[in-house]
C-alpha cells in the first residue's frame, strides 16, 4: 500500500481528499520500452553509470536527487527501489535547443515497469522534453510509473510535455519535482487521456528571484477512469510567478480529484500565484472533487483561484443549438476544444497526431 498526493494543509478527513491510497501490490517485470527518439544538438543523454565513468560531460551534472516530488515520500521510496537507473537529460550552459527531446514509453498489455528521469537545464539554456506513454491497445492492462526531477538553473527554460495514452486498464503514477532558480522558467504541459487509474503529483519550488512556472493540464476521464492530481507550487523567490490551468471533462463513472496548492512563503515579496480549474461534467454518475488551496505567509503577494465546475453553460448550449448542434454534439465539441487548447501548446506534429488519434478512438 502506498499513500500518495498528501496535502500539506489537510482538511476534514470525511471528505477523503487529504491524500490517495494505492492498495495494489505492484510487481514489476521490467517489460516495456523506453525510446529516446531524438537527441538534438546541445543535449546530452546518459544514465547514472554513464555519469560515473567520467567519459562525458554528465559527470559534471550536479545531483538533483534531493528535489522533492509531488506524490510524496512513499512514492519517492518506491521509485528509488523500482528503477535503479536514471535517464539523464542535460542541456549545457547557454545552449538553446530548438528541437525537442522525445522520450517514448511503449507499454503493452502485461507490461509493468517504472523509470526515473532527471532533467538539468544549465544557466541560460533552453530545452523541450516530450515524454509520452503509449499502449497500442486501448484496453491494455499493466503498470507504468515515472518519476521526473527537473532542475532549472538561472535564466534557463524547460518545457516539459507529458502525454498519457496508455491502455484503459493501466495503473499510472507520474511523479514530478522541479526547482527553478533566478529568472528560470518551467513550463509544464500535460495531457492525461489514457490509463485506467492515474495519479499525478507535481511539486514546483520557485526558489529564485523572478523564477516562474506555467502549467497547463488537459484530461479526459471516461467510463471507469480515475485521475488523482496534486500540485504544490512553493513560492520562495521574490517576484516569483506561477500560473496553473487545469481543464478537462468527466463522463460515465469517471472519478477525478484535484488538489492545487499555491504556497506563498515568507520572503517571497512581490510573488504572484494563480490557478484556474475548468471541469465539464458530461453525465450522471461522475464524481469531481476539487480542493484549491492558497497558503499565504507573506503580505506583499497575490494569490488567486477560480473554478468552474458543471455542465456546459446555458448560453453556450443555446448558441450551439441555434447553429444546429444537438446537446451531445455541443458537449463533444466543447470537450474537444478544451483538450485541443492544451494539445496546441505541444509543438510536435507526431505527438499531435497520436493525441488526435487517441481522442477520436475514445469518443467512438
Amino acid at each position, binding site marked *: 500500500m502506498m499513500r500518495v498526493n498528501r496535502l500539506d494543509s*489537510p482538511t476534514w478527513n470525511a*471528505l477523503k481528499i487529504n491524500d490517495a491510497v494505492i492498495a495494489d501490490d505492484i510487481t514489476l517485470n521490467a517489460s516495456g520500452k523506453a525510446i529516446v527518439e531524438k537527441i538534438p544538438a546541445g543535449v546530452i543523454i546518459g544514465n547514472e553509470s554513464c555519469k560515473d565513468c567520467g567519459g562525458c560531460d554528465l559527470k559534471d551534472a550536479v545531483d538533483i536527487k534531493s528535489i522533492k516530488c509531488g506524490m510524496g515520500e512513499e512514492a519517492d521510496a518506491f521509485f528509488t527501489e523500482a528503477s535503479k537507473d536514471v535517464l539523464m537529460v542535460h542541456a549545457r550552459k547557454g545552449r538553446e535547443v530548438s528541437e525537442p527531446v522525445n522520450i517514448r514509453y511503449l507499454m503493452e498489455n502485461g507490461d509493468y515497469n517504472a523509470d526515473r528521469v532527471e532533467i538539468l537545464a544549465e544557466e541560460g539554456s533552453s530545452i523541450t522534453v516530450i515524454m509520452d506513454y503509449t499502449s497500442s491497445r486501448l484496453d491494455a492492462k499493466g503498470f507504468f510509473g515515472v518519476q521526473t526531477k527537473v532542475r532549472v538553473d538561472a535564466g534557463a527554460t524547460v518545457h516539459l510535455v507529458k502525454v498519457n495514452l496508455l491502455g484503459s486498464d493501466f495503473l499510472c503514477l507520474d511523479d514530478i519535482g522541479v526547482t527553478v532558480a533566478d529568472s528560470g522558467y518551467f513550463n509544464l504541459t500535460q495531457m492525461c487521456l489514457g490509463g485506467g487509474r492515474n495519479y499525478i503529483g507535481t511539486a514546483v519550488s520557485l526558489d529564485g528571484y523572478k523564477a516562474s512556472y506555467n502549467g497547463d493540464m488537459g484530461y479526459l476521464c471516461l467510463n471507469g477512469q480515475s485521475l488523482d492530481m496534486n500540485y504544490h507550487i512553493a513560492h520562495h523567490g521574490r517576484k516569483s510567478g506561477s500560473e496553473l490551468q487545469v481543464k478537462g471533462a468527466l463522463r460515465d463513472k469517471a472519478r477525478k480529484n484535484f488538489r492545487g496548492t499555491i504556497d506563498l512563503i515568507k520572503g517571497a515579496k512581490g510573488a504572484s500565484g494563480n490557478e484556474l480549474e475548468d471541469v465539464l461534467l*458530461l453525465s450522471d454518475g461522475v464524481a469531481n472533487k476539487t480542493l*484549491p488551496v492558497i497558503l499565504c505567509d507573506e*503580505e506583499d503577494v497575490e494569490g488567486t483561484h477560480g*473554478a*468552474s*465546475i458543471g455542465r456546459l453553460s446555458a448560453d453556450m448550449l443555446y448558441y450551439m443549438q441555434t447553429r444546429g448542434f444537438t446537446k451531445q454534439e455541443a458537449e463533444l465539441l466543447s470537450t474537444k476544444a478544451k483538450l485541443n487548447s492544451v494539445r496546441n501548446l505541444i509543438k510536435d506534429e507526431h505527438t499531435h497526431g497520436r493525441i488526435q488519434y487517441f481522442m477520436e478512438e475514445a469518443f467512438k
Partner: protein
Amino acid sequence: MERERSEVNDIDRSLYDFRYEEKDEDFYKVKEGLTPDIVREISKEKHDPAWMLDFRLKSLEIYNELKVPDWGPDISGLNMDDIVTYVKPKTKMQATWEDVPDDIKNTFERLGIPEAERTSLAGVGAQYDSELVYHNVKEEVLAQGVIYTDMESALTGEYEQMVKDHFMKLVPPTDHKFAALHGAVWSGGSFVYVPPGVKVEIPLQSYFRLNAAGAGQFEHTLIIVSEGADLHFIEGCSAPKYNVANLHAGCVELFVGKNARLRYSTIENWSKNMYNLNTKRSICEDGATMEWVSGSFGSHVSYLYPMTILKGNDSHCEFTGITFAGAGQNLDTGTKIMQTGERTSSFVNTKSISKSGGISTFRSAVTVGERAKDAKVSISCASLMLDDISRSDTIPAMDIRTNEADVGHEAKIGRISDDAVFYLMSRGISEEDAKAMIVSGFADNVSKELPLEYAVEMNNLIQLEMKGAIG
C-alpha cells in the same frame, strides 16, 4: 507639516474584558475534568429526564473514543482536566430585568443588552456561565404563538417531546469529539418554535457571557421554524480575558420548514484565551431559505463552520462571514454546505483580515449530491493581509456528483492594491485616507449584513479605527 498616521487597530476589547470577581458562595460549580460522575451531577442539577441522562452518558463514551481533529489549528493547550464544565449562578432565571442580581445585571448592561431589547428586539435570553439568568419575550410575539424559552424549561416542560425529537439529531454526538463533549455536558441555551405562517417581524436575541475563569460553556440552541414562517435570530458571545484556557463548545440546530426563512446572525467576540469549538447546523425543507451572517472577532483558537443541508427542492442558503484575526489568534472559520435537493442554490461570501501575527483560515466544503439536479453554487472568499507577520490561508473543498450543476468558486489573497491607492490619490485623497477607505470598503459588503442596529454591543465589535498608516 504634521502628518496623521492611520492604522487598523485590533478590536477595542476594553468593553468586554471587565469582570466582576465571582464569589464561590454565589455560584454552584462541578469539579474540573470530565467523568461519568460529573455528567450525572450536571444531569441531576438540571433535573434531566432519564433519557437525557442516558444520552449524556452515551455521549461521554463517544467523546472518549473519538480523536482530536488532526487537520486544524493546534488545541494542545486545552486540557479538559482543567475545565469546569458547569458553573451555575445561584439565581433563578428571571423574567424581569430588575430581578437579575446586580453584578450580572451590570455586566449585561455594560454590553448594552437591555437597551437593545427595549429598542429593537422581540425577545432576549441572557446566559451567564452555564445557565440563563434572564429571559423575556414581547407579548405580541407570544400572541403569535411563538415559543422562546430556555432549553431546560423546554426539556422538562410541555415541549419535552419536541425537544426529544430534534435534540442532537442534526449534530449527532458521533459527528466529532467536541459534539460528543457537548452531548455529555450541555447546559443552557434557547429553544425557539415559530408556528406555521408566522412572520416574526423583529429579531430574537440570545446573549452568552462566560465570566468564570477556566470554565466551559456548552449552550444548546434549538430553533424550529415551521412551514411558511420567518425569523431572524441573533446570537452574541463574549467573555473577559483570563490567563487560563476557557472552552466554548456550544451546539446550534436549526430546522427550517417548507418555504420558511431563517436568518441566524452571530457576533462572536470571545476573549483571547478562549477555545471556540462550536458546531452549528441547519436543514432546509422544500423552498426554505437559510441565511447565516457570521462575524468572528474573538477567541484564541476557533473552529467554526456553520453547515447547511439543502435537503428540500428549491431550497437556498446564503453564508456571509467576516473574520478578523489579530495578535495571538488562530481563527479557522468557514462553512459547509450539502445540497441534495433539486434546484437548490447556495451563495457564500466571506472576507478575512489578518494583522499583528494573527492567523486566519477560510475552510469550506460544498457537496452536491447525485440527486441535486440543477444545483447552483457560488463561493467567493477574499483575504487581506495587513502586515508581514500574519498569515492567511484558504482551503475550500468541492465535491460534485451530478453533471446538472453549475459551480463557481473564486478566492483571492493579497494586500491593499497599489493601483487602487493610486487611483484614490489621483482624486485628491491622501495615501493614508485612501488605504483606510479601501480596508473599510473591503469589509463593507459583509459588515453591512451584520445586525448592528439591533444591539449596541455589535457596533463596538466592528469598529476599525482608521487613523494612520496601514501595515
